[in-house]
């Protein structure tokens, strides 16, 4: 295995509606900043991989147009995944492991504000038996939350506590969207949005973009910041039929975490991609994270949830925290699909 590190990361502020910039306009300054901080001249970056979905803007080949923000002349070595940027990072990491390139740029973008995201996400469901019922993302997450409440795995209060902690921690994150001090007792008097979920259990609708540059040893030391090494990276998935698995656990997260080597050392903090409050409880348990591990110091997806970006942002926020000196070993997690169907786990270490 080659040692590969995150050498730079840039992200936009997460906002409810980015009205004035298209995807290319959002990405250009981020790419410029990430390239500069990587210390690697842009023309020397061996590979570019993006993660996004055209369904967010309803524009076919939006992902191709986004390459304008990189500058693709002379032609560049480029790829795309119709997934969160965390899986674009996985492809880029494999490409480096194969020895084809020594460095890569990963970018992702999502302007959820243009559509009805909960409903747009029904397009990812089984088209025969699920999608025609239009079970939106919030309703599916509510089925999962109720299953755990019924099984005694968590309470509505514990769910609210996750949301309150995430949004309080997000106060120190200048890019976060929903931040502040909220009172659990007061939140629990709010009406249900889709029972048993209340508004605070759900992520905001967010627009945002992120850019990351990774490099193998050698190239990694040109950066302005010390490399944050990717010590383990794996992703696994569960059945797409929500009725065919136990929604209160996440075996795919557990397997990915074991393969990534989560417990090969102490975990200082974890950035978990849990868009719904109860999902943080599931992922923590699946990864075997104890009470000593600070979870989602950035605020996580309950504070900022640009679709297709929020997973990559867990890795990026982890790197930023290590650069800031607040810990040296982190676990970052990204999810995709309904009810935590697919999960990626990455172990990161500072020098």
């Amino acid at each position, binding site marked *: 295995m080659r040692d590969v590190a995150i050498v730079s990361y840039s992200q936009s502020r997460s906002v409810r509606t980015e*009205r004035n910039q298209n995807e290319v306009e959002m990405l*250009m300054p981020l790419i410029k900043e990430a390239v500069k901080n990587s210390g690697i001249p842009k023309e020397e970056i061996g590979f570019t991989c993006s993660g996004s979905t055209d369904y967010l803007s309803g524009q076919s080949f939006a992902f191709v147009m986004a390459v304008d923000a990189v500058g693709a002349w002379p032609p560049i070595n480029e790829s795309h995944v119709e997934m969160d940027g965390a899986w674009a990072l996985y492809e880029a990491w494999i490409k480096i492991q194969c020895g084809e390139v020594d460095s890569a740029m990963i970018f992702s973008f999502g302007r959820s504000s243009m559509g009805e995201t909960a409903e747009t996400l029904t397009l990812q469901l089984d*088209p*025969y038996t699920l999608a025609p019922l239009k079970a939106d993302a919030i309703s599916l997450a509510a*089925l999962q939350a109720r299953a755990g409440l019924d099984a005694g795995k968590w309470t509505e209060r514990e769910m609210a506590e996750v949301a309150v902690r995430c949004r309080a921690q997000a106060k120190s994150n200048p890019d976060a969207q929903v931040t502040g001090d909220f009172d659990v007792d007061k939140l629990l008097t709010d009406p249900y949005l*889709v029972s048993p979920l209340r508004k605070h259990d759900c992520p905001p609708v967010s627009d945002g973009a992120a850019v990351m540059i990774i490099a193998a040893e050698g190239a990694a030391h040109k950066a302005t910041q010390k490399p944050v090494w990717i010590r383990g990276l794996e992703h696994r998935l569960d059945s797409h039929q929500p009725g065919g698995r136990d929604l209160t656990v996440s075996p795919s997260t557990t397997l990915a975490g074991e393969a990534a080597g989560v417990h090969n050392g102490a975990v200082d903090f974890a950035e978990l991609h849990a868009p719904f409050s109860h999902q943080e409880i599931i992922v923590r348990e699946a990864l075997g994270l104890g009470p000593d591990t600070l979870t989602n110091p950035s605020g996580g997806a309950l504070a900022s949830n640009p679709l297709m970006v929020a997973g990559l942002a867990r890795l990026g926020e982890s790197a930023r925290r290590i650069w800031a000196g607040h810990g040296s070993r982190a676990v970052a997690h990204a999810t995709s699909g309904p009810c935590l169907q697919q999960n990626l786990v990455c172990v990161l270490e500072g020098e």
Partner: protein
Amino acid sequence: MSNSDTDIEVGLSAPHVLDYDYRRSLGPVLSRFFTGLRAGTIHGIKTRSGRVLVPPAEYDPETGEATTDEFVEVGPGGVVETWAWVETPRASHPLSHPFAFALIKLDGADTAMLHAVDAGEASAMKSGMRVTPRWAAESQGSIKDLSHFVPESEGSAAAPEAPADPTTDIVTPVHVEYTYTPGKAASRYLRGLKQGKILGQASDSSGLVYVPPRGACPRDGVPTSREVEVSSKGTVVALTIVRVPSENIKVDLPYCTANILLDGADQSFTGLLQECSLEDVRIGMRVEAVWRDASEWDYSSENIKHFRPIDEPDLPFEDIKEYC
């Protein structure tokens, strides 16, 4: 497109709808399931380990092995495993009044299927409650032939008449609504069109002028911050004759679509070429935009009706070959 002309820094927005149907073939397993629904029966399938999957699948998700060819009739009643109360249904939801989405384990099944439960109010819902199906009055050939479930206390419904032919494929409509915002560069371009101008933007690095602009120089990835008005006249650099009808095309067949390099631009621009015989269209031909009446101008490329030839000598291929 909406918005006032004075607020130049606020991007435009417009409604945008994706609407299309997929016709999907079912294969033998799902064909059995969907044919059954039309007759008021629900079929699962046995895995090699003897579990019954509902809805049936061609493979066992736990092992990846093919399932057996043994179908099992399950239900029609079953037990709610978990549920979500939708107090404010969306227009696309299966029921228009408050209802529950639920995972329902039908009698005889080992997995739960997703569907809607019409229980009147949330207080009537409970995990573990028994429910029974209601069938659609008319078959749509979809999962919605099973309209929804109701509490079993409301009694079972008569099954619809069995269909003569099996269901072999289904239509799954996709309808997605957006409020599209094109960003700063495209908003400026569209505002220009409203005033009868074609505004490109020049690359900060190379000075190349892009029309329509998207805010970036695609060669270098740098902003295009300088606005440049380009001419309504230009040169044909590529063309095609369209002879196949398409739903969205409003002009008579056959017609010519051309890539036109407007004078002052470095990127070609697609337009209809009209007011000339199709035999005469050629690369290098000089053309001009024909605008609609100024009273009809909107934030739209449709302000330009089409392009037509002008009485100027053709440009030699050498001068335009980079764009052809």
